[in-house]
């Protein structure tokens, strides 16, 4: 029997001894100079501490602060996520250029996340829009603390505006970290596979909008748009989809009007919740913006009401 953890005891379940102390160079090292850096005489009592603590709770608290902060500044925060090479930065630069063209007074700011370099922030700054580059080093995603700090370095006019957060190119990890954004926007280019929404379901489940980028290349690639959309809806029935090309500008009106709609919504929210309390943004993912057919939207509302009633009943019962 292993004396440190008790594994291998005939009375306990056998397990693979995969917790590392086998590599400490012999039994004696367990007790003295092992990685625990405590000596055996100091250890006697043993007890169990129940925690039931969510590991992402610390990030979620900071994200809630960011969300409140964005709301107070009337800022619509969009978290752009994609694989590397989806054309996210080109799309962002073109979006900024057009937003500026449409309204020179609109507040704009960018948080650029990359493991290394400031290339992307420089591309953004060339449009005249301020950008803060966050280098995550070995990290594969931005977290709420990074975004909060970066946001403090950006200045928005009193009328608010749009904050674009360009996450690290990665379709896996950024799905888990809430940054306080109003919506995650997943960019999928047609030069990637049309099966990606099923291959990386967590990201498409977390996104409110999927942008199918590089549609000008459709004639040259094997990419089934309908299939990609169907797969995305399978992991997220509410996801909205827009098709565009950052190089030709095709489909940009739809994307810009989506932003305008969300921005109006963000400002409206601020107007109605002036006290800046932490209001729930879940409905951002719920309301359909008219993209799903109206009867489907109605059915959804009905189903959600039933769900709310059911949960309230359950809550009532547990009190």
């Amino acid at each position, binding site marked *: 029997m292993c004396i440190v953890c008790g594994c291998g005891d005939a009375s306990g379940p056998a397990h693979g001894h995969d917790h590392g102390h086998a590599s400490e160079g012999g039994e004696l090292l367990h007790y003295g100079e092992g990685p625990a*850096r405590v000596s055996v005489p100091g250890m006697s009592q043993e007890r169990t501490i129940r925690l*039931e603590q969510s590991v992402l709770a610390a990030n979620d608290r900071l994200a809630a602060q960011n969300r409140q902060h964005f709301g107070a500044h009337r800022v619509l925060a969009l978290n752009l996520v994609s694989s590397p090479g989806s054309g996210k930065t080109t799309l962002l630069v073109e979006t900024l250029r057009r937003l500026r063209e449409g309204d020179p007074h609109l507040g704009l700011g960018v948080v650029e996340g990359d493991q290394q370099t400031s290339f992307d922030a420089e591309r953004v700054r060339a449009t005249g829009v301020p950008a803060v580059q966050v280098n995550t080093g070995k990290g594969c*995603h931005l977290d709420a603390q990074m975004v909060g700090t970066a946001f403090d370095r950006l200045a928005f006019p009193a009328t608010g505006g749009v904050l674009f957060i360009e996450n690290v190119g990665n379709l896996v990890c950024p799905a888990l970290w809430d940054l306080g954004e109003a919506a995650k926007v997943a960019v999928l280019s047609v030069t990637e596979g049309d099966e990606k929404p099923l291959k990386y379901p967590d990201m498409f489940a977390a996104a409110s909008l999927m942008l199918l980028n590089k549609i000008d290349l459709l004639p040259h690639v094997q990419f089934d748009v309908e299939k990609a959309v169907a797969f995305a809806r399978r992991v997220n029935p509410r996801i909205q989809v827009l098709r565009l090309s950052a190089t030709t500008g095709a489909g940009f009106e739809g994307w810009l009007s989506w932003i305008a709609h969300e921005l109006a919504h963000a400002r409206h929210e601020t107007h109605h919740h002036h006290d800046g309390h932490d209001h729930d943004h879940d409905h951002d993912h719920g309301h359909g913006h008219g993209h799903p057919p109206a009867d489907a939207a109605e059915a959804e509302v009905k189903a959600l009401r039933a769900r709310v009633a059911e949960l309230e009943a359950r809550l009532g019962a547990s009190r």
Partner: protein
Amino acid sequence: MHELSLAGGILRVVEEAAQRERFVRVKRLTLAVGTLAGIEVDALRFALDAIAPGTVLAGADVVVESEAGTAWCLACQASVAIEARAEPCPACGSGWLQATGGTELRVKDLVVEDACADPALQLG
């Protein structure tokens, strides 16, 4: 490899508990990993092994309990069990599902060892 960040988050939770509860090392760490939480358990174990040395988690036995995925099917208006996000409703086959459970990573509990206060017991 977001598992490395998550391992860091686990260590933070454990170290906060160590400060609060004054223990010197963790003998067993029990985690609850939701099937729909987007976490690769082997990668998480690897990451925990990598960061544990020199911390209260060094040498700790890591127990991972899997939590089943559940979703609310808007078509059936019922809670159903699913194993992956892309799965259709097992009852009606529709894809109109909203994940409701098994989406979290939690530190469930710790079995810890305290520094012994009584010197007379130290050689025990």
